[in-house]
């Protein structure tokens, strides 16, 4: 687990550091444009200028730590990480941890909603579809599932915005952001309504693909169990289908879904770059993307570390929940 994570950070760190257009280069470009705008003094002052340039560049490099070789920089970053210090963001001038936690509300909204949706809608729907395989209910809901397979979430969001956000048709939902400007003045119900209005469209887009995959996964997993020998045995010894399917088959069918159980750790980091970008939500996905464009490496590295930790803890919880659902599985 930890060697893997170390490998991930080494490679990502190296890629980010050799990426052109870093903070020093950005500052230099800015300076060069400034100098050009400053005056056309001719060649006389240019040597003096380049002298200042060199000193300034050195100072810049020192400020960003680029005066030291890459492995020294990496080990400094790593020792800070061991002390649970992700460093400061270059762009926001704040500790990375603060920058990331400020984005949690959007992620939590995404994460919790999709978690509820998965377990309250997709799993029951998958079970019902497996029982009604090739009957009317199955065909009718398959329309929804195929829709979910076939429309990329971001394309759906753009369509919904054009349709419902006052472009040329209905003006029902606000277009951008998570809350209105006067959010703090609203009553509790006003706040709730405001949030719901802002989040309906992005949430729909966020879960549309996942809905199709999870429902079909549940259905297929359930069919595999229903048609297996032990369920036939259960019927043969006279159990009702309520117990044979509801108790025996269901429990086994839930195992593949339980892989996603550990996901609730990642609730804080749930994100979708495209949806956040289109709906103007300040989430983790947009933060990582912007930080990458700004070459704000501490933030990018911070998000990568946090999400790998969340992934590992999530996998652990998934493994543990396996043993709860299926006592035959143990890791001894």
């Amino acid at each position: 687990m930890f060697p893997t994570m170390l490998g991930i950070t080494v490679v990502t760190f190296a890629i980010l550091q050799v990426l052109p257009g870093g903070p020093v280069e950005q500052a230099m470009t800015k300076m060069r444009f400034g100098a050009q705008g400053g005056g056309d003094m001719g060649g006389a002052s240019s040597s003096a200028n380049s002298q200042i340039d060199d000193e300034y560049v050195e100072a810049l490099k020192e400020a960003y730590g680029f005066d030291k070789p890459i492995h020294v920089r990496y080990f400094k970053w790593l020792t800070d990480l061991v002390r649970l210090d992700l460093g400061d963001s270059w762009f926001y001038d704040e500790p990375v941890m603060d920058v990331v936690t400020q984005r949690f509300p959007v992620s939590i909204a995404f994460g919790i909603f999709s978690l509820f949706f998965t377990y309250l809608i997709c799993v029951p729907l998958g079970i019902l579809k497996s029982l009604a395989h090739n009957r009317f209910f199955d065909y009718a809901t398959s329309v929804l599932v195929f829709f979910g397979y076939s429309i990329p979430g971001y394309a759906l969001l753009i369509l919904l915005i054009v349709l419902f956000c006052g472009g040329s048709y209905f003006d029902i939902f606000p277009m951008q952001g998570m809350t209105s400007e006067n959010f703090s003045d609203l009553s509790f119900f006003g706040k709730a309504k405001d949030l719901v209005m802002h989040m309906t469209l992005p949430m729909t887009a966020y879960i549309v693909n996942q809905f199709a995959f999870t429902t079909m996964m549940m259905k297929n997993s359930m069919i595999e169990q229903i048609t297996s020998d032990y369920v036939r045995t259960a019927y043969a010894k006279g159990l009702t289908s309520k117990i044979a399917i509801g108790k025996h088959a269901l429990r086994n069918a839930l195992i593949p879904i339980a892989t996603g159980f550990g996901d609730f750790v990642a609730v804080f980091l749930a994100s979708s770059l495209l949806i956040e970008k289109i709906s103007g939500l300040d989430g983790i996905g947009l933060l990582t993307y912007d930080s990458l464009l700004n070459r704000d490496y501490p933030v990018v590295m911070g998000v990568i570390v946090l999400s790998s930790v969340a992934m590992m803890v999530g996998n652990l919880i998934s493994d543990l929940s396996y043993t709860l659902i299926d006592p035959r599985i143990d890791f001894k």
Partner: protein
Amino acid sequence: MALLNPIMRKRFRKFKTIKRGYYSFLILLITYVMSLGAELFVNNKPLVLYYNGEYYFPVVKFYAGETFGADYIAEAQYKELEKSEAFKSNPDNVMLFPLIPFGYNESDNQLSGSPPTTPDSRHWLGTDDRGRDLLARLIYGYRVSMSLAFIIFIISYIIGIFVGGLQGYFGGVIDLSFQRLIEVFSAIPFLPVLMLLASVFEPSILLLVVVFGLYRWIGVSYYMRAEFLRARKVEYVESAKSVGASSVAIMGRHILPNTITPLVTIAPFAISSSIILLSSLDFLGFGVPAPTASWGEVLSQATSNLTSYHLSVFPAVCLFVTLLLVSFVGEAVREAFDPKPYFRHKG
């Protein structure tokens, strides 16, 4: 060949009987082949040109402006030529334009309003924000995204089969060390790698395809690894070993044909996820370099032109229909190659 054995023929016959999937496959195949010849239907060059007693075929051949009495040696500007005095002076001179007489990268300078214009009789699906015909861009965009998805599919399958096969066949240390490397590799974020390579090399379609191929083989390798791990302990492999078959022969001739089921069943889903990912990258501006036609690029224009419904509806419908057909094919392929028995208990 694996394609000719009776089991495979039976599966193809089964696939043909699943009408929804089979017809979806035919539609995709025919439209894709047609899109490869899109220049014949959608083009700003005439199909046939009769000029001063001679026939010219500008779609398939390059003619300099000089050929038609203009004073430049670059490719002739046929639409201006059509209006020129030199062309009109001979009443026999004729130009026959394709059905949609616009190039995918041609800004129309005779628009009814400021671009993006809504659909009208001149531009059936309207124009984008640079006054380019939307239908032309969507058709060429179909060709680009299907071709790229297909090339990425081939690259990722070749690498995935090779790596996964080696891992599964040899197992042990080779398997584990590769598996750790793959874990690290798959966790490296995609966008920085693409940006890095785009800064070292010139951003191009080729580069995009290579970077995509480098990432997308991982899923294939998992399937192959599992299949080879299972197969290497089965009797037919043991007996092949005992008669002295080489590892290469066992892997290539004996195990590989038996792994065709997972490879074929995941293929349509690999294609559709490549189409989605490519369109998302185009949307962000990191995809195919401009001015290549792309659905994602049109969708990104839609976000800044919310009143122009055609910029969002038509590309979204294109994506939707294409992906829907691909998933119909995928469903039918799965049904034909990997049928799951279903029966109801009477309890």
